[in-house]
């Protein structure tokens, strides 16, 4: 039984259509395994080899991977929530209530989105602390630390813009306070607030702007910087293993 299954899988992997998509070819050799990673548009961001030490739990506590996991949950649940949500006043609040009480599994998806968002902020900080205290931000990885700080800011902005969308009292006053903090910038503060809200008060324009930022602009920026972040791990010699002296400085 197992043999026939293996044969079947091999047959599929050797046929012309499969080979036209996956050029790595079949086989268990190191070359084939390397080609599998190298010739895949997503996997080629990562190293084809990793030190055993870097894959151990104690090396990273998998905090970066867990952060990325929460991000993926947020993208999927977020897209699903968008199917029932209208970013308009006062429909937004009603839609949020509908998601909680009317839509099947709506409350599950909404809570998953909310808790994943909280978890992501926590994990981003934990990841950064771990990187900082291991000294993994040092040469040649300093630029990847900078990318990480940008990703931290994007995470916080995603949380902040998402906070307004339920259009309840908490959302309204949090964004009122937040946008007034922005207006404390010298000289151009009032103008920044005006552009941010699309008006002088937290209103329909502000809701729509925050929605577009939350659902399109900021996630696209986050995906872009995530790709660079992952690719830089490979370029900087893989995940930091701890022994600074013996590592390759540039791949």
């Amino acid at each position, binding site marked *: 039984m197992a043999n026939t299954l293996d044969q079947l899988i091999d047959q599929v992997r050797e046929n012309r259509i499969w080979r036209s998509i996956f050029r790595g070819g079949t086989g268990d050799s190191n070359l084939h395994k390397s080609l599998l990673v190298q010739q895949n548009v997503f996997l080629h961001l990562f190293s084809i080899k990793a030190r055993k030490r870097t894959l151990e739990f104690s090396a990273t506590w998998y905090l970066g991977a867990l952060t990325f996991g929460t991000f993926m949950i947020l993208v999927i649940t977020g897209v699903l929530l968008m199917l029932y949500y209208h970013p308009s006043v006062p429909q937004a609040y009603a839609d949020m209530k509908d998601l909680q009480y009317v839509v099947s599994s709506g409350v599950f998806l909404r809570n998953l989105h909310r808790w994943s968002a909280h978890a992501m902020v926590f994990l981003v900080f934990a990841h950064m602390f771990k990187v900082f205290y291991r000294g993994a931000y040092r040469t040649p990885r300093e630029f990847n630390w900078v990318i990480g700080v940008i990703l931290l800011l994007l995470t916080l902005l995603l949380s902040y813009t998402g906070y307004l969308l339920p259009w309840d009292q908490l959302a309204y006053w949090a964004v009122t306070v937040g946008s007034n903090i922005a207006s404390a910038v010298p000289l151009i503060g009032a103008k920044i607030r005006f552009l941010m809200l699309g008006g002088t008060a937290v*209103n329909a*324009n502000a809701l729509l702007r925050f929605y577009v930022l939350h659902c399109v602009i900021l996630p696209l920026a986050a995906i872009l910087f995530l790709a660079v972040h992952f690719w830089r791990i490979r370029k900087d010699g893989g995940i930091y293993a701890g022994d600074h002296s013996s590592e390759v400085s540039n791949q």
Partner: protein
Amino acid sequence: MSRRQFFVKLGVGSVAVAALGTAAFSYQYLSPNVLYEPSPIVDAGKPDHYTPDSVTLDPQTAIYVVRTAGGFFALSAICTHLGCLTAYKPDLGVIACPCHGSKFNKDGVKIEGPAPRPLPWLRMWLSDEGDLMVDRSNAIAIKQLVRV
């Protein structure tokens, strides 16, 4: 300058001009020309609706109409710290912000808390129909009471 250098400069220059134009265009596009927001001028109703020595908050328009022995004045109810709506506490005689604990007296002067400025006095006048009118966009520097 070689021909190649000239065309490189021309190319970089055109891209820079286009980038500046895009920045200006984006800035203008993102600034709405018409705001569908409530008018800053509010009709606060007839003066005799307000009892003597009272502080009345209208949460919809975020203004206090204060009636003293000498006359009326209007205060903005928006906290000068971070824009929260304040509330009048009659038992303490103070205006308090629920967000970060700023307190003001009836004249809008700060008593305590993080607010950097007093609550602004807003321009108030009597309309021809005898209603108290308040312009929320117009803070007045010289405090004047409206006598009825």
